[in-house]
């Protein structure tokens, strides 16, 4: 009987070796191991008629033969499956360059929102509150409170929309209108930014808009100085335009600060070499700033002897235009989908 097992093992292994496909393998499996008439199955069934002595010696060998055949079959099976997968995977090939269909349109933030959010997050990380104020503002908060009394020539440079039947109401020309409101509400120390919409009664063209966005900042504390202002604004421009960006300050007159400066960065397009955008100067003006005038601090109800601070204002539209290379300011408020889709 033992010989029979050895024989069946040898012939089985040879047959397994020569199998070509999974159908043949299945047939072979049935022939050898089929529950009813498998050759090996039948042989194994015969074991029960043996004496217990023989069972011991033959049984062990028979079991080995069965395992050997089964594992050879399993191995062949996976070998065949691999070969067949290679074939069928070729059939499953597809054009991976094709977009997923049906196409699904995505949403778009307005580019001003994108830049504004980025700045808000930066300032929030430095402990600044984000404040808000009315767009229809009083003459007082927009001008008088920030050291621009009536008949001050600075009013000339900010053509103003006034409100019918309310001569002391206007559309705010600058987010600085929130400075004194913030001081009165929160006192000192104060760290806040005010992003928002402002209005100028100016004819529009490619570079001028009557509706514009600013982001104002105010810092008031007992030991704030010019060097602090410079450092904070350097952080901001580096965050916006990269660590390589250089900042320079130049004197500029704003009634609500003293000293007043404007901030210029190395041109983002030509890296300071001089180009059309920076008018060959290599520098781009992007904000106004200064140490807050004591009159403004006093107007905010804060002790100007004890506290000082700085304020700054960025034109958001300009930042956006520089960032995305937009050369026509009016497109920002055009509601044109072909514009919005680009962001």
């Amino acid at each position: 009987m033992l010989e029979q097992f050895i024989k069946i093992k040898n012939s089985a292994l040879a047959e397994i070796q020569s199998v070509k496909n999974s159908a043949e393998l299945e047939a072979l499996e049935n022939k050898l191991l089929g529950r009813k008439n498998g050759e090996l199955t039948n042989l194994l069934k015969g074991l029960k008629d043996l004496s217990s002595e023989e069972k011991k010696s033959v049984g062990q060998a028979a079991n080995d033969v069965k395992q050997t055949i089964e594992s050879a079959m399993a191995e062949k099976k996976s070998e065949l499956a691999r070969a067949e997968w290679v074939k069928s995977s070729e059939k499953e090939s597809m054009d991976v360059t094709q977009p997923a269909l049906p196409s699904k349109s995505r949403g778009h933030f307005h580019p001003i929102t994108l830049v504004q959010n980025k700045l808000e997050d930066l300032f929030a990380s430095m402990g600044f509150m984000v404040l808000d104020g009315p767009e229809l503002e009083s003459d007082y908060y927009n001008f008088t409170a920030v050291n621009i009394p009536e008949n001050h020539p600075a009013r000339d440079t900010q053509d103003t929309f006034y409100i019918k039947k309310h001569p002391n109401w206007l559309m705010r020309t600058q987010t600085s209108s929130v400075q004194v409101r913030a001081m009165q509400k929160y006192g000192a120390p104060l760290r806040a930014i005010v992003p928002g919409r402002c209005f100028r009664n100016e004819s529009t063209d490619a570079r001028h808009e009557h509706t514009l966005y600013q982001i104002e900042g105010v810092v008031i504390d007992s030991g704030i100085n010019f060097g602090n202002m410079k450092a904070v604004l350097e952080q901001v421009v580096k965050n916006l335009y990269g660590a390589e960006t250089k900042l320079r300050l130049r004197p500029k007159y704003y009634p609500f600060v003293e000293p007043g400066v404007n901030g210029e960065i190395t041109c983002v397009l030509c890296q300071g070499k001089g180009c059309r955008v920076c008018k060959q100067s290599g520098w781009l003006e992007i904000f106004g700033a200064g140490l807050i005038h004591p009159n403004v601090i006093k107007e905010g109800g804060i002790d100007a002897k004890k506290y000082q601070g700085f304020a700054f204002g960025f034109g958001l539209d300009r930042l956006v235009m520089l960032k995305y290379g937009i050369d026509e300011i009016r497109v920002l408020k055009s509601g044109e989908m072909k514009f919005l889709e680009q962001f």
Partner: protein
Amino acid sequence: MLISFNWLSQYLQLPSGVTPEQVAEKLKLSTVEVEKVERLGANLKDVVVGKVLKTAKHPNADKLSVCEVDVGQEKLSVVCGGSNVKEWMLVALAKIGAKVRWHGEGEFVELKPVAIRGVDSQGMICASTEIGLGEMFPLKEEKEILNLSGRRLKIGMPLSEALNLNDAILEIDNKSLSHRPDLWGHYGIAREIGALFKIKLKDYSVGKFKKGNRFDLHVKVAELKLCPRYMAVAIDGVVVGESPAWLKQRLLAVGLRPINNIVDITNYVMLDLGQPMHAFDAASLNSKPIIVRLAKDKEEFIALDGQKHKLESFMLVIADEKHPIALAGVIGGEASGGEASGVSANTKTIIFESANFDAASVRQTSMKLGLRTDSSARFEKGLDPSLCELALAKAVELALEICPGAKAVSNVVDEAHWHLNRGIIELSMEFLQKKLGVEIKQKEIAEILVNLGFGVKIKKDVLRVTAPSWRAGKDIVIAEDLVEEIARIYGFANIPSQLPIFSISPPRENKLRNLERRAAETLVKELGYAEVYNYSFVSAAQVKNLDDDLSKYIELDNPLSKEKPFLRRHLLSNLLENIQNNLVDYDELKIFEIGKVFAAGETGVRAETNSDELLPRQDTWLEAVFVNKKDNTPFWEIRRAVEIIFQSLNLDWQIAPLDKVQVWEHPTRLALLSHNGKVVGVIHELNPMTANALGIESRVGVLKINLSKLAEVMKEKIDIYKKISIYPAMTRDIAFLVKKEISHAEIVKALSHVDQLLKKVELFDVYSGDKFGVGKKSMAYHLIYSNSDRTLTTNEVNKAHDKVKTVLKSKFGAETRE
């Protein structure tokens, strides 16, 4: 304002090698905006003085001639179209390679060798306009070439040298000078440059003149506040004529056209010292004295340009007894009968006026009449009254020099009613360091101030500073003003950056702003909406299209366009305009805006500190519109947006039908949105009648949420974890017919307490069609039963499900469909 570099060098000895560009750069970094530096002769390279030796008719053109021109080393053959070209004429000859402007227009282009009508031309005989000298040599006729004959010039010398055009002009942005009245003339700019380069400024020297007593000059100033100083003197024996070349050159260099010697003198003094002056013809005055008074209401004034103006009673005039002869500080006038009060060719005796007028008054007058002049631009900045004296003396000196027979024949009037507070301003070193964050040596600080004209006395750690008269009371009043002077001259670049040190308290939350950002985020990222920024202004037509009440809109007093004078009360009007404009190119539009609207009649924040007046309410709204050309019930898409927005905000919300309908809302497709019982918005379809009026053929879904209101009342849900049941749930579906009016909300509410095994009621289908009978609809729900303690038995689920059927039947008359 234009500043001539040569003019400046009258007052400063700059180190050799310092270029105009370097000066401009220093000024930019420490004082004012220099927009550009223009080298006057820069465009005249390769333009030389030539002499026409011969002219001959061009063989192929009647109006052209072929000229032989001597340019020193060589003789050139040049085709010329000049109407006045003659033999032996001295001309400006542009050699090949020179820059010229064709026909005196457009950009400068390089001259190349060309053949004109078959004849080679080796250069070009230029008209003044073709080489940028049109101002200096105005054309008398169109085809006239520049005639240099009569000057002693060397043939072949560069034209820039021949005309003394080696100057550089600094163009300064006037806006950057608005706070510095002292910088509106060359002497003031020179002083500033002196401080920047630490070079001593030369004294402004002006000789004394002999007064006369032949002419009794009287001035009566009625408005002492508006005219703090009025100086005048009469000069007899003037001969009005052309100014000498040096004077014309000075004026032309800075863009002013010479008129006659007397007017040129007043202009020169203004450009030199910044003090505007005026010269009257003494003979034109109807009487003495000269009166400085307020205008009478509607008084007529004819300016020297012939323009007639109606004056108002706040305007200051210079007048004789009958008429105003000048608008103080703004413009001179014509006297009665069209006779100019200014200087004409027949003038023999003049009166020089050198006065100081109130800045605000001049500004108001010039603004009101729309008359902005070089004079008003200076006075409205607030000039130094002590300048009057210097300017007058300079003008007289020049008049006597230019008209040798002239002399002062009157007393010098000086109606002076002014006082300057020049300080003392105390500046402590501690204060300065605290402001700038850098320690600067006291000596250096004192030097900076002294170079700018300040008086400085050092007293231990304090500087006792006196402001110069030209800045006192204007931009120098308090110690902070001195800090600026020191900082900008010391150099902003030299002040080290140093991040401030703050306590680490986190910023106070801005609830509204956070809400805005989160809502926008959901709309863009989850729902695919595009964010738009529209203007805050709307037109009457837009309001009318919505059938909204115009009286509820706030109106601008001075709108930019008459078309859109109203402040938006909804964002919707402009969003609908976005749809109109974009729908041509798109089948589907999803657009939203977040912005402020203005509500007339509703009150918001305080207008002024401690005032009762309140500004109108200005809430921030989120409004969104949805259109799809194939979708006739965009309401659902909009409702989905609301669901997702509130879910992502983690806020409970309720929706309810609405009785009060606005005209532009679809009367049966609208619902009110609330949060915690407070109304915060509305969703609806646009009334198709409104859409029609706007030319929008598709249905429009509209979402409006008042974010200001929501931020005020919002309360986030508290999510508490529910243990996940290990026992399987059982889902039974149910479909039934009910009347159309029965709402989903009512059904959910009725089923909420039917049986505690029923955990969830999910609508999955609604259908209404004819086969169910008129006014009926079929609704289908998944009902999910579960028990967290044990496995459900079929029996208990059956019992619960039967209860559901019973309730639906009894409450809604529902017929269950099997």
